[in-house]
């Protein structure tokens, strides 16, 4: 049986799943959430591991099933679906994030101003509901220092995952 996955971390989960259960789920590369969704609906790649916002409507209609969400807590979009920790994969590490950065050399006061304005928008209740939580996205909103430390930690975690998987850089 084939699956499509958003990236290397999601593929890593299936590698581990195959190892643990002796299954043979095979990755099929795809371009973007739309193509992955088409693959599931047509049955060409019947399993997808991608951003939940892509298929929330289909799960509601009963055309697809949400098996597991990679989040600390259950998603408001899929309240009946267990987290990976609940099903025995606490360190799946597949959570994608989206970040705001500026090219190196951007003046510090502009960076501070952008951070302030974007924080205000991100913390606005209506904006948050309409553009984030209702769409299966979990808002973060940290400081540049926190984000910088997070990024460094995540880079090290990814390096470890890549080494463990024996992936040679291309």
């Amino acid at each position, binding site marked *: *049986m084939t699956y499509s996955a958003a990236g*290397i971390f*999601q593929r890593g989960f299936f590698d581990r799943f195959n190892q643990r259960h002796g299954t043979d789920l095979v990755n099929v590369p795809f371009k973007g*959430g*739309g193509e992955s969704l088409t693959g*599931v609906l047509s*049955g060409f790649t*019947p*399993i*997808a*591991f*991608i*951003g*939940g*916002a892509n298929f929330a409507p289909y799960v509601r209609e*009963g*055309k*697809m*099933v*949400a098996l*597991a969400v990679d989040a600390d807590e259950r*998603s408001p979009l*899929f309240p009946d679906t267990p987290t990976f920790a609940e099903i025995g994969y606490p360190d799946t590490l597949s*959570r*994608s*994030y*989206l*970040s*705001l*950065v*500026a*090219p*190196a*050399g951007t*003046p510090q*006061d*502009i*960076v501070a*101003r*952008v*951070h302030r304005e*974007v*924080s205000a*928008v*991100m913390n606005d209740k209506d904006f948050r509901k309409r*553009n984030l939580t209702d*769409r299966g*996205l*979990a808002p*973060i*909103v*940290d400081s540049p220092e926190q*984000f910088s430390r*997070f*990024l460094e930690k995540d*880079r090290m975690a*990814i*390096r470890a995952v890549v080494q463990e998987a024996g*992936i040679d*850089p291309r």
Partner: protein
Amino acid sequence: MKANSGCVTALIFLVAAGVSAIGSSASAQTYPARPIKAITDVGPGGTYDIFVRALGEALQPRWGQPLVVEPRPGGNFIIGGRACAEATPDGYTLCVLSRQTLAANEFLYKKIPYTPGSFIPIMNLLYNTQVISPTRRSTSGLWTNWQRWQKRNRKR
């Protein structure tokens, strides 16, 4: 002679302070004076693209300037990262980039045209919660097995 060199030092210091004051007032007080570009590493129409456009719309009344989204998808996220790294760092280019661009590509590819130092981190915006989801029809066997397996797991 000694007093003289002290004088020169003081003068240089004043010049440096003057320059930084001008730089600061020009950027902070008048910013943004024109539209801001947001480089992304994904194509138009997807989850992230829709989000960035919504963010731009919400920022416009605050800034009095639009946020113009410039999708640079493809190339295993290298194209978007490169476009951001090579942009003029004057505050009129911001970049909304994904995890693979910022934290993974350096370990997956031998040659990428940017480094972690190419970017100033501003804010982590969101987690895109990933979900495993098959069709109900095509994988009913798998679904049943998965439910059994979950039940076993919960008991443990």
